[in-house]
C-alpha cells in the first residue's frame, strides 16, 4: 500500500496536466527505509515525448547524489500516460529498476486539459512482475 499526502498527490497531478500531452515524470523522495514519500521532485522529461519519458542523465546523477546526501531514496517514481490508462506499459516494466519504489501512474487521457482530478494508480514492479496496490491519501 502507498500512503501519500493530499498535497503531493495534487502536485503530481498538476505536473501531469501542465505537461500534457507530453509525458511528465518525477520522484517523491523519502528517508531511507521509511516508505514515506515526503519531498516532491518534478523532473524534466528529456525525451519531451507524448509516449516516452526519460530523466536526463546529468539530472539523474544530481538527483541521486542529492538523495544520497540527505539519506533519502526514491519512495515514489511517477509519470503520466497522456493517451492511455494509468497502467504500466511493457516499456515501463522493462525499465523499472528500483525494487523499493512505488511506481505511480497518472492518466491525463480523459481530462488532460480540464481542471478535474486525473486517475492516479500505484504499482510495485519487481523482477518484471506488476502488482497494483491501494493508494491511501492522507
Amino acid at each position, binding site marked *: 500500500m502507498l500512503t501519500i499526502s493530499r498535497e503531493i498527490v495534487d502536485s503530481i497531478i498538476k505536473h501531469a496536466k501542465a505537461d500534457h500531452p507530453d*509525458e511528465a515524470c518525477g520522484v517523491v523522495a523519502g528517508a531511507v527505509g521509511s516508505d514515506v514519500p515526503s519531498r516532491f521532485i518534478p523532473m524534466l522529461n528529456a525525451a519531451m515525448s507524448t509516449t516516452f519519458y*526519460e*530523466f536526463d542523465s546529468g539530472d*539523474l546523477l544530481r538527483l541521486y547524489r542529492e538523495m544520497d546526501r540527505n539519506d533519502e531514496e526514491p519512495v515514489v517514481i511517477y509519470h503520466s*500516460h497522456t493517451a492511455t490508462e494509468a497502467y504500466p*506499459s511493457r516499456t515501463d516494466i522493462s525499465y523499472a*529498476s*528500483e525494487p523499493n519504489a512505488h511506481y505511480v501512474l497518472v492518466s491525463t487521457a480523459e481530462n488532460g486539459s480540464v481542471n478535474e482530478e486525473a486517475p492516479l494508480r500505484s504499482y510495485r514492479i519487481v523482477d518484471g512482475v506488476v502488482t497494483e496496490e491501494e493508494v491511501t491519501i492522507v
Partner: protein
Amino acid sequence: MTVQVEIPTILRTYTGGNKKVDAAPGTLESVIGDLDANFPGLEDRLVDNGKLRQFVRIYLNDEDVRFTGGLETEVDDDDVLTILPAVAGGSVASEVTEQLPAAVGGALRA
C-alpha cells in the same frame, strides 16, 4: 591502486549489500570484468553483446560514459564510477526496446 564503484540498490544483491566496492583501474570494460571476477553476474547486468545496457547509466566522476568512449573509457586510480538505473518508460514500447528484445525484462534485475 583502486577505483571506487558506487552500486545501485538493485545490484547490491551481487555485492553482499555493499554500496561502494573497489575495482582495479583500466578501461571501463576491464573494470567491469574485474568487478565480475569479485561479484559474479554483475557484468551481465551492465553489458549485453559488448555494449552497455540501455537500462543502466554509468558515470566516470561526473561524466556519463556514453560521452567519454563507452566501454573504452580509461578509468584511472582514484576515479569514482557511479552506476545508476536509468529512470525511463512510457506508454508505448520504445523503438530502442523493440530492437533489443533480449534485454526486455532482464535489465538490471538481480
